[in-house]
């Protein structure tokens, strides 16, 4: 009953050959989704966009409004050379990252708190929705009053913006946890903390990351808007200063930097997402399911 036959794999060498070739075929199919291919598509999209932009600029639309890729490039080089760009980017980046940090921490905390206390959540819900509905830019005077006009104010504004986005997504994630898994941990003698750490947190991770995805750009936007309220440095200031001096290329350089920061942070979150969701499979509807 306990005699062990060698696994099939080693028993028939020609089969194992066939298996190798299978792997290769699968590999080929997967090529379609290889980083190289995707990057080529992305590059193509980018190039088309730049060409269209350059073509429209001056011919159909006044460069005062849309500048042109070449002008933006020239301005970028100039500002990189004289250090302007880095100086402004640094400060905005700092505000954004700190804003993200505090916003994410507080949003997750509040999401868990209310997600696990349905009564509290229901009582607070209308207030949260109401506060959230107030445009923060309209509260500029209060922000100035409470947090001054320095970097604190900008971090607070970015944090507040981030907070709500993270909060709502965390809340949804927490509420979606599987009761059966919670029960399983309780059966193992897990206390509240264990249920949180072993079930709720992993279940809510996906939602939280969606929240972070959504929040990253808003952290940037929050910081920039705060810089438009009051500043003498930062990309928001650069946008404003360039706009008032009719330097449209300058505005676009600042926007370009913002979108690059957004893209990089997004890629970062993507890789965290990929890591934490390795246990999931991508859905396939199998429209073309040919073996």
């Amino acid at each position: 009953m306990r005699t062990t036959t060698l696994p099939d794999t080693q028993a028939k060498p020609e089969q194992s050959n066939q298996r190798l070739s299978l792997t290769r075929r699968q590999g080929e199919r997967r090529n379609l989704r290889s980083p190289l291919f995707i990057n080529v598509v992305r590059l193509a999209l980018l190039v088309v966009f730049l060409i269209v932009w350059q073509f429209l600029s001056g011919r159909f639309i006044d460069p005062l409004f849309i500048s042109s890729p070449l002008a933006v490039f020239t301005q970028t080089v100039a500002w990189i050379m004289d250090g302007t760009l880095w100086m402004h980017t640094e400060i905005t980046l700092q505000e954004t990252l700190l804003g993200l940090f505090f916003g994410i921490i507080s949003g997750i905390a509040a999401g868990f708190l209310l997600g696990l206390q349905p009564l509290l959540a229901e009582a607070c819900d209308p207030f949260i929705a109401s506060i959230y509905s107030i445009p923060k830019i309209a509260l500029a005077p209060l922000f100035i009053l409470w947090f001054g006009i320095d970097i604190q104010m900008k971090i607070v504004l970015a944090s507040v913006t981030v907070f709500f986005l993270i909060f709502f997504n965390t809340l949804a994630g927490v509420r979606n946890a599987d009761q059966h898994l919670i029960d399983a941990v309780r059966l193992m003698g897990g206390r509240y903390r264990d249920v949180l750490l072993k079930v709720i947190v992993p279940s809510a991770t996906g939602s939280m990351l969606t929240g972070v995805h959504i929040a990253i750009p808003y952290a940037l936007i929050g910081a920039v808007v705060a810089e438009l309220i009051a500043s003498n440095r930062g990309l928001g200031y650069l946008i404003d200063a360039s706009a008032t001096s009719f330097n449209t290329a300058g505005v676009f350089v600042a926007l370009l930097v913002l979108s690059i920061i957004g893209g990089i942070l997004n890629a970062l979150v993507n890789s965290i997402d990929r890591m934490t969701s390795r246990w999931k499979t991508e859905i396939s509807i199998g429209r073309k399911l040919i073996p």
Partner: protein
Amino acid sequence: MNAVIRIEGVSKSFLHGQQENVVLADMNLEIQQGSFVVIVGPSGCGKSTLLNIVAGLLPASAGRVYYQDQLMVAPRLEIGYLTQKDTLMPWRSVERNVELPLEIRGIGRAKRGSIASELIGKVGLKGYEKLYPRQLSGGMLRRASLARMLCTDPETLLMDEPFGALDAQLRLELQGELLRLWETSGKTVLFVTHDIEEAIVLGDRVVVLGSAGGVILDHTIELARPRDAGRIRFQSQFVEIHQRLWNALMVARSQQQEVAL
């Protein structure tokens, strides 16, 4: 040749990290039109994987599956497949779950309702129509899934451990119902079970799978029908077949990784 399902050189392997796990290796099998074929085999030997491939859900790594001499490339309407895992839509009540395949075929509301309620009655879920899946017991879930599969009256049935979670009595009733359905309609049934007795009571033919989908035994059951599940176990022929299948399973099991007790 009236093979309704032809499995030709089918292989399937999954990548587990770097390592390749070969689940089916060059498997060949033919299922004759109108036959009742039972598949048994050790846990993890690839029975469900095989059924997934036959149903057209999963692409094989190599080889081909033909249904009525046509290459299977996607699920077909003529095939009903009761998967091992229950896949009722959690947001639909029992009733609406059972109606779903009819809904997809565009059958009118009234017709749908009557077909569904008849089948819900047959599987003993009358009175539970309005419940959501999370409110059902394990066996009730299984029965609802069964009703859902049967409601389109498919020509060929693939069933992966359909009665495992049911009590002995109910199982007997549903086995009887299934046999009656099969006998009167000329359907083809491919049935996976872990219960050797069930295999013998139901099958024309029992296939014992071993490691990597290798066929250890392909045994035709010559017992006369109708077979009485209550008595059959005491027939000498039954005991003999039982022993033979048991031995085959033993071989199959030993092919697999050793279970260190």
